[in-house]
């Protein structure tokens, strides 16, 4: 099994499964509310010109995260 990486390290077009949220309090709540629970599939859609924020497809909605949020979501890449 692959090692977990932060969500912001994935390249465009990559798919991954959430393993863990490395956040507490409101940020954690927010990420959970957006549908990021362990096992959720996330796809990297595109990056803004400076590489941050990054847009992801999460359960059928496209949502952009800044690095500060994305790096708190640990994932394993799937093909």
């Amino acid at each position, binding site marked *: 099994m692959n090692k977990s990486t932060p969500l912001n390290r994935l390249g465009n077009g990559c798919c991954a499964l959430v393993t863990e949220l490395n956040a507490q309090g409101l940020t954690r709540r927010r990420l959970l*509310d957006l549908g990021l629970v362990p096992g959720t599939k996330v796809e990297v859609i595109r990056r803004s010109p400076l590489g941050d924020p990054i847009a992801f497809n999460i*359960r059928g909605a496209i949502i952009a995260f800044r690095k500060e949020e994305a790096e708190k979501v640990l994932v394993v890449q799937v093909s």
Partner: protein
Amino acid sequence: MGLTYQSTGRSTTREIFNVPNAGSELVIALAGNPNTGKSTVFNALTGLRQHTGNWPGKTVLRAEGSFIHGGRRYTLIDLPGTYSLHANSVEEEVARDFLCFANPDATVVVADGTCLERNLNLALQVMEITDNVIVCVNLIDEARRKKMHINIQKLSKALGVPVVPTAARSGEGLSELMDTISDVALGRVMPKPVLVRYSDEMEKAIAQMEPKVREIIGTHINTRWVALRLIDGDTKLVQAMERYYKEQNPKQADLEVLA
């Protein structure tokens, strides 16, 4: 002793929100995730032209309109789109405060039929606050186009609330939605939401807190929900309750002790 809010009740809190008091007109709230077509449903029902648009945060404050159905006037409140009622942002706070304190006669949760999974989180949260919930599966035309079939009866049974499929853009399902709204608002249909059961530990904590919460705030707001939020450490809710009930309930300060 001052006025407790049990004696002044729902009418007083409703005045704060500038919506009609119970009895005269029925108040219906429209909630839902961003970009599920709440404003389109709102416009289709009221005939108004509230601005619809596809960008986040379009309806930051609520919009209001009305329609007449079966000889009664219904005031419809279009709430901002949110993913959750655990207030992180202004929009979420507006939506939560309205559902929690204005006690609408019915709440319609507008869900995107093409990605139901992510929309039902909010539906479950709304069901924790109020029983009078209707789930409106909107964009059903889009779902059909994507060859998705939604089993409305099964969904309704699983949730314990009425579910109505609509395509607000073309008007499909709207008369059925109006019928369902009036059935629920007038008490002809009583939804029995199937609530989330938490871990034994949590349920025990809720059972311990609920009577205390009830003692302080009465049954005006759903005590199970308040207990859950307090266990969650939601201090914003306590602040909001203080704001809305300040003059009406001198015992409110006790809540801080509980939190």
